[in-house]
């Protein structure tokens, strides 16, 4: 691919790679925008996400799948049905067309799986060294039915915190690939669209469901701290209840990382009124995306808004969010 490619070259690129991969009536119109029907009832939900990942292809996914699911999941966390997506590609000069083709088809497959259409897009090629191969920005629109109010400020003391499955899979799969760690070869990213799981959860818990959030960057630790701050509460977790795969534990031990701070791309945290917790848990476990779901803690009153965790040894530690990468604290 050549930087500054003219209009014709770009049009051919789009026609040969993106159009077949993403085919849908809106894209087929060939306009610079998509004219979409207004969904009846409910409210619009709108979100955007930028996908940057190295390596671009990793066990369990690639940057294309990640870009779609990132936005789709952000919409789904509001209880919304995602409908439309836009994609914007920033491509480094010299990027292999074969890789681009593979990624475009992955985007198509992920969009179909999530039930969304990529209705508009953009492509830019930048000079060598100005992008790490490829960046993808996506934005999405979904619709949430009237009466469903999920928001990060709705956690109340006594509510239960439910996690949909094991933590750290995505981040550790990426790390293992990057660091060439042979003993985590069978570990895959959990990258997935959570739409069907969310639908099952909304159906099961109804208004008892307070909020959902996907613990992506910063992991479960950052997400719970965000929610604690937003809701003005504390959270009390049980370490033993949080599922962590052995390969994830092993890599974390080797690199000195905390699995709770590692990114996930196909997990969600739900806060639910205590009386509906078991019902919701059962509904989640009945779905393949929530088969390993677990109640991992309780929302508590705490003016300090701390996320605390009872450890396997019976002590209690603060689960803090990190300012950046994990730095040693032991003097």
């Amino acid at each position, binding site marked *: 691919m050549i930087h500054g490619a003219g209009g014709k070259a770009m049009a051919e690129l789009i026609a040969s790679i993106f159009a077949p991969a993403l085919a849908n009536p809106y894209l087929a119109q060939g306009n610079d925008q998509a004219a979409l029907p207004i969904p009846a009832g409910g409210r619009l939900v709108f979100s955007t996400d930028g996908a940057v990942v190295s390596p671009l292809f990793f066990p369990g996914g690639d940057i294309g799948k990640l870009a779609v699911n990132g936005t789709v999941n952000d919409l789904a966390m509001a209880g919304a049905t995602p409908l439309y997506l836009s994609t914007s590609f920033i491509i480094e000069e010299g990027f292999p067309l074969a890789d681009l083709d593979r990624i475009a088809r992955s985007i198509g497959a992920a969009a179909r799986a999530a039930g969304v259409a990529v209705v508009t897009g953009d492509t830019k090629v930048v000079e060598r060294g100005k992008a790490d191969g490829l960046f993808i920005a996506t934005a999405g629109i979904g619709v949430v039915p009237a009466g469903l109010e999920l928001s990060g400020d709705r956690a109340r003391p006594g509510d239960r915190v439910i996690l949909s499955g094991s933590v750290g899979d995505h981040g550790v799969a990426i790390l293992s690939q990057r*660091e*060439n*760690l*042979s*003993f985590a070869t069978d570990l895959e990213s959990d990258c997935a669209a959570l739409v069907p799981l969310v639908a099952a959860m909304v159906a099961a818990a109804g208004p008892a469901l307070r909020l959902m959030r996907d613990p992506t960057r910063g992991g479960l630790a950052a997400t719970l701290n965000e929610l604690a701050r937003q809701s003005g509460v504390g959270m009390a977790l049980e370490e033993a209840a949080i599922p962590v795969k052995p390969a994830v534990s*092993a890599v974390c*031990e*080797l*690199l*000195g990382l905390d699995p709770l701070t590692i990114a996930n791309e196909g997990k969600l945290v739900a806060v639910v009124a205590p009386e509906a917790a078991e019902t919701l848990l059962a509904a989640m476990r009945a779905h393949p995306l929530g088969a390993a779901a677990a109640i991992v803690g309780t929302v508590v009153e705490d003016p*300090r808004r*701390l996320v*605390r965790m009872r450890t396997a*040894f*019976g*002590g*209690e*530690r*603060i689960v*803090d969010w*990190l*300012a*950046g990468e*994990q*730095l*040693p*604290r*032991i*003097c």
Partner: protein
Amino acid sequence: RGDAPNPLLVREAIRLRGVVQGIGFRPFVFGLAERHGLAGFVRNDGECVTIEVEGAAGAIEAFGVGLIAEAPPLARIVAFERASRAPCGESGFVIRASAGQGAAAAAIPADLAPCPDCLAELFDPRSRFHLYPFLSCTRCGPRASIVRALPYDRANTALADFPLCPACAAAYRDPRDRRFHAETIACPVCGPRLDTPLAEIVAALRAGRIVALKGVGGFHLLCDATNPAALAALRARKGRDAKPFAVMVANEASLDRFARPEAGHRAAAAGPARPIVLMPGRARALAAGVAPGLAQIGLMLPPSALHEVLFHALAGAPDGIDWRTQPLPVALVATSANPSGEPLVIDDAEARARLGGIADLIVGHDRAIVTRLDDSLLMLADGAPAVLRRGRGLVPEPLDLGGDGPCVLALGAHLKATVTLTRGREAFVSQHVGDLDSPAADAFLREVAAGLTGLLGLTPDLVVCDRHPDYRSTRIAEEIAAALGRPVLRVQHHAAHIAAIAAEHRIDEPLLGAALDGIGLGDDGTAWGGELLRIEAGAWQRLGALAPLALPGGDRAAREPWRMATAALARLGRADAAAARFPTQPLAAALAARIDRAPVTTSLGRLFDAAAALLGLRLVQDHEAQAAMELEALVTTPRPLPDGFTLTAGQLDFLPLLATLATPGLTPTEGADLFHGTLIAGLAAWIAAAATEFGTDRVALGGGCLANRVLADGLAAALRRQGLTPLLARAVPCGDGGLSLGQAALARKF
């Protein structure tokens, strides 16, 4: 006109500053003035005592001499100002109420062990205080631990709920009584009571049981330190760690039964603060479980009347007081009663709830502990006492910074956290708060910060913390600063270690310092910990560092010395030997394979870990610095390895030493001698070269590694041989417990 003043009368105003309050100073002045037939008054004024005396010139002169010469033992007078006043014909001497001082400049006295006079009463069957566990006077007893608010009056202490009986009330009002205005005065008639008979406690201890006893600043867990089964039970119930326990013995004479104290150890242990003092242990005098693998043992003498009567009962309740000078073959483990990693338990109900699974008998009393204070811990370094943990008996006595400055609040580090608040030329360094991983410790740090600022009625101009963004203390500093609308200043960890020493020694000029430490975040974002620094007027500059070693797994490497040994092997080009060398570590091969991609550190603490693991001494630590302490315990005579280090452009590299330590066949003892000897030689050469370039003859030695006595003594001596003056941390810990002072001191000059 009435009577003209007698022309032979003179009047003089005297102001004294220093430790002059809460130690019976005013009654002393009263008695002295009466003895010299002087009229006038004495009054506490802020941090000063103001005296005006009127009488014959010769008598006033004698009075002035007596003020210094006969001052109560705990007084420390740092400034003495005199001015003449016009005589006003006053008659009689009075103690005036402390007028209009409020909390703004008031002092809070520290908790002190019973004074000799109180001890005499305690063991005198004719005294109304005979065997009363809560006796005290103006010169001794609980203070900081029971103060709720200032001014320091009984109504503002935990004794507010104990109305004085007539005898105590009379003593309180009598200026000639030792208990004149003793806010903690109490007797068996009107004072607090122990909730369990002494005989029951004694029986439990003799039977090898574990007793939780409410002490001065918190509950202790006590058990017979000579009973291996009792020790094993305590270790099993408290958790699996091997942390050394402190041991309490009856009196000074008993120290020698269990240790080999030097004169300095003896003096420090017998001082009124009654700290735990680290001293060479006596083999097999105590059960092995007290301090596994360590040569030093922490001994403490009874810190309160309650502990005195307990030992008296353990001694078989002998008559008189002579037993206090006889060695007693009784030693009690006395360790802080806290669930692992959490702050000390201070409340009776809390003790029953949280210590039930640990203690067989829980003994409380009805005098509340207001302020949680761990036992202070002290070592001898370079021949003089050095505080390793500030707590009971030392807190909250302020340090004199030697000059005025803004009011700053510093929150310290993440481990061994303390808080420092400055007021004028004083720095109040808080008690040991501990490691901030738990929500309870987080709450304790906030409580200490709020308590200090609240008690002293101060609003800091500036809040200071470490550069590390993820220390809990950093987060709390940010929150406090935001709430106050004040800025946050972030000080580099090792600059703060050096600045703490500069502050203690009141050095204002540019100072050269070596920070020999675990890990702190460096200005370049890497893990520092063996640094030569120059600090000056709030700024710092790195002049040199140890050669970096890999730090594979970050904090994991601090817990698992085998990782640091692998880092050392990697530097020797033998990373592939790690798996065979550490067969018990399943991650060894994977770790060695990617060690080039690990972050690096210049920490000396991690070099200790590497050495301990290379020698096969300890691969995984149960508690902080365990490997280094066990390595130190093996030292017989430190011996430098010829050409054991290289010195290039400010970088000190111990690679040749590591090569020798990695050689199979070297015994741990030989290795410990070589390691310490070479370290001392290398560090001394490194520091001396920098001092020459810097043009200075004094150098600060800071950081947690200085808690190693072999290193502290050896390095100080080596530097002195080179004509340099080593400055060590004394009143605040060399490790992270002293960090808040350094942060505050640097920030004040910023």
